[in-house]
């Protein structure tokens, strides 16, 4: 009875569960025995017909007192002893443990893996963000060394039976040896503010070989590094939830719209005015409630410590770009206009390429032959493209489709692998076909 633990995914989980189950069984036994005795006495010695029967004046028994002091004491010593022994086992760090560093901050986890590349150079792989998936190899002890960047957090992997508080200014660790491949949830278990319950990550346990591949695959980071500041800003605008309160089309939400805000003179709540420039935007991101625009409430959470300088620069560039000249991309890109189906594939393709995708294709691919972040679409179909790996191919329908759905597969020479792999979920099969049809016509 009462066995609700999740699966045992770490080497020490079985010991912890053994201890837990012993306590459960002892608890059930003593509870049933004592409450059972109480109920038995209550029924057996109940007052009958509203009249008390004679009762003996028993004031106690030294023998019984001794027994029920000594028995719980012995049980206690047994439980405390094994509790300590198993605890010590769960905290022991084996010599071959893989050391990973984790940072907690409101409200996500960052991980740093240090490793040696083929040339023997020390490299670091950094991953992080909301719902990040971190990866470890199976059957190898993992020591996760943790610190917080702001308030208290706590790192809890139920399947590994591992938990430790993550404290600002102080290192703590958990250690466990995963014994099963799979995906396991990670929770924050120390209350840390508004999004505490969403401060999650998942742990993926994979084979040693797969882990090695994962560790050395740096394409995602390169993609981000290769993005233009405004493209990065655009991604952050949705990722960090700016879009919940700041519109791009001038409509009033909880905060001011970003449309044409850059360069504007805003009147503030305290009666002064301010020029919306790079510094004001940075200040508003880091300390949002210092200079509130008149008519708005001071409700924005601070992003201090959550965004790096590059990311803030990206957001500034993105906000600056909202000057009304570019067509506004709707945050959700699904083509839902009335009469969409009545348009020809070409017309649909053109709308998708120019506006209906997020980010819009044309923000990185020109139609006039100039090279932006990605190759221009002008005359792309049928062109011979040289790839980064030295091979070359003729651009056909299959290659275009593949490049939309899986941008990292074949990167054109002299271009960074910067295209976000988001269109696979954004576009329907027909949309991709329409885009290809349209691209064929761009000459």
């Amino acid at each position, binding site marked *: 009875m*009462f066995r*609700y*633990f*999740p699966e045992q995914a770490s080497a020490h989980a079985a010991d*912890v569960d053994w*201890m*837990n189950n012993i*306590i459960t069984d*002892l608890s059930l036994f*003593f*509870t049933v025995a*004592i*409450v059972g*005795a*109480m109920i038995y*006495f*209550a029924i057996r*010695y*109940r007052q009958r017909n509203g009249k008390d*029967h004679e*009762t*003996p*004046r*028993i*004031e*106690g*028994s*030294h*023998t*019984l*007192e001794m027994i029920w*002091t000594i028995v*719980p*004491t012995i049980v*206690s*010593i047994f439980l*405390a002893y094994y*509790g*300590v*022994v198993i*605890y010590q086992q769960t905290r022991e760090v084996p010599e071959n443990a893989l050391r990973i560093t984790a940072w907690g901050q409101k409200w996500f986890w960052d991980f740093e893996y240090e490793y040696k590349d083929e040339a023997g150079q020390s490299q670091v792989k950094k991953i992080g963000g909301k719902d990040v998936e971190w990866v470890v190899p199976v059957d190898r002890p993992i020591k996760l060394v943790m610190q917080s960047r*702001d*308030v*208290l957090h*706590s790192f809890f992997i*139920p399947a590994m039976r591992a*938990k*430790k508080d993550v*404290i600002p*200014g*102080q290192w703590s660790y958990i250690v466990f040896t995963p014994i099963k491949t799979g995906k396991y949830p990670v*929770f924050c*278990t120390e*209350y*840390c*503010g*508004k*999004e*505490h*319950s969403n401060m999650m990550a998942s742990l993926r346990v994979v084979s040693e070989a797969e882990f090695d591949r994962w560790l050395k695959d740096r394409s995602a980071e390169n993609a981000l590094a290769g993005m233009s500041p405004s493209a990065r800003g655009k991604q952050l605008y949705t990722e960090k939830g700016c879009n919940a309160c700041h519109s791009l089309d001038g409509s009033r939400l909880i905060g001011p719209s970003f449309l044409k805000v850059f360069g504007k003179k805003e009147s503030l709540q305290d009666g002064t005015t301010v020029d919306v420039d790079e510094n004001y935007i940075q200040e508003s991101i880091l300390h949002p409630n210092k200079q509130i625009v008149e008519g708005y409430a001071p409700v924005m959470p601070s992003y201090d410590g959550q965004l790096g300088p590059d990311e803030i620069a990206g957001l500034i560039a993105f906000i600056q770009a909202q000057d009304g000249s570019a067509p506004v991309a709707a945050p959700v890109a699904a083509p839902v206009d009335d009469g969409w189906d009545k348009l020809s594939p070409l017309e649909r393709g053109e709308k998708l390429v120019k506006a209906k995708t997020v980010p819009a294709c044309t923000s990185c691919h020109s139609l006039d032959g100039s090279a932006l972040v990605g190759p221009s679409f002008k005359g792309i179909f049928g062109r011979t493209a040289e790839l980064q790996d030295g091979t070359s191919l003729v651009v056909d329908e299959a290659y275009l489709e593949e490049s939309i759905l899986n941008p990292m597969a074949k990167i054109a020479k002299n271009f960074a692998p910067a295209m976000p792999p988001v269109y696979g979920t954004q576009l329907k099969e027909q949309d991709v076909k329409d885009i290809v049809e349209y691209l064929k016509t761009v000459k």
Partner: protein
Amino acid sequence: MSAYSAAGEANAKPNYLNHEKGIWSWLTTVDHKRICLLYLFAILIFFFVGGMAALAMRLELAKLYGTGQHNFIDAETYNAMFTIHGAVMIFLFIVPGIPATLGNFLLPLMIGAKDVAFPKLNLFSWYIYMVGACMALFGLLKPIGPAFMEKAMNFIGVHGPVDTGWTFYAPYSIETGTSVVWMTAAAFVLGFSSILTGLNFIVTIHKLRAPGMTWDRLPVFVWGTYATAVIQTLATPVVGITLLLVIMERGFGVGVFNPKLGGDPVLYQHLFWFYSHPVVYIMVLPAFGIVGEIIPVFSRKPIFGYKAVVYASVTIAVVGFLVWAHHMFVAGISEAAAIYFSVVTFGVAVPTAVKVFNWVSTMYRGSIRFNTPMLYAMGFIFLFMVAGTTGVYLAVLAVDVYYHDTYFVVAHFHYTIQGGAVIGLMGGLYYWFPKMSGKMYNETAGKVTWFLVFVGFNLTFIPQFALGMEGMPRRYYDYLPQYQNLHQVSTAGAVINALGYTLALLNLGWAAVFGRVKAPANPWDSLSLEWQTPSPPPHENFEVTPVVTGSTYAYGTPVRGDAAAH
């Protein structure tokens, strides 16, 4: 053979309720019985406030429109709700809950005194409590209305309901924008009320016992209140100073707890739990006392092992001071400290077990009456068995690491404090209601509402043990879909539980105001002193100072040759 030479009978003479009239006579009273009622009204209001906050949380967690989005309150409101629930229930309801109400009423009556040692200080404690309560309300307010109102409220430090949890853990409590200062200042002020009440009780028990009321004849409720008073006096100053440091840190940047200023957030936890662990004994020790009064009377038997029961209470109070960091096994304390605190915690488990064995043995060969107070006492034993055994999981180092800050802890805590202290208080209110009001309550309604409370409570918290075992962390506004079913059962239980408490208290309130059945002086045939004076008692408690000649628990026929019989 009557144990007492003085026994009051019901008569038409003025009693404490009607010997003076008018609101002013209540607000200036120094009668411990009237002060009990002042406290009782106040704490029941806060019981309601805290209960509503709990219901708001439970309704949100039922996720009636699916997980992932809010459907009842948003995340910020939810965080405020569990803070309000915790802070109000602990600082305003259950810490003063039994000592300041039943303790105030019964302590002088049970030891045969006219009043507590310092009656004016007693009233002063109530006023301090009310000031603290008003300050706490400032910590719950949301600045709304026209701009000048908002500015005015911001000016006095009202920035929105506190969202730190009742523990005020640093550094979150240092940096959040909500009204932490009002709430911590309120707890600081409330602490003085608690300390002064404790001091008053200690002196009363030492100095004002009636002739013949020796220490080994003191009712177990008095012993429970005495142990509580010692903890109140010694532990409360520590939390007061700690919360003051939080205020200093927020206001003046003194770096005690904030690592950015060179402080240590773990130090905060040590100081906080140095009070807040013993405080759970402030809550339950008097409840142990109540159960120890009810069971002998309704079993017509002496309390089994009087001395063991008393020593157990005192041991719990003393050892309770030495175990605080068992709240911090994963918080960054050293391995040696963790081992020490785990082992010593069992020093509390053993005497608690001893008490349970003694209560159950008291019923052996009794003549058991199932009045509502006895149902609460028996319910208490079951709930406290669950509370105690689940406490063992949390004392065992290897297992606590898993359960720490999960729903298992939430459920365990509620079994000790609601299943223990609140059920004890309810039993006590039913048991002493005839004495306090001079009326009899409706027994059928009492039993039906007890059943609602008991079933609702278990339905709320048994699923939470399962949730904790499955790994569900506490203080979560949102959760993975796999936890939803158990959360919904728990919410259903909470609604029944709330309904039970409301009706059970209304039953008493109705009887007090509209009841027609007058209570005799001693409806339960108790031997304890408070029942030997009229119901309700006269202003001066006893017409003649009683002289005690025997045990408070001399029920039943003396047995010859019994090992422990005198």
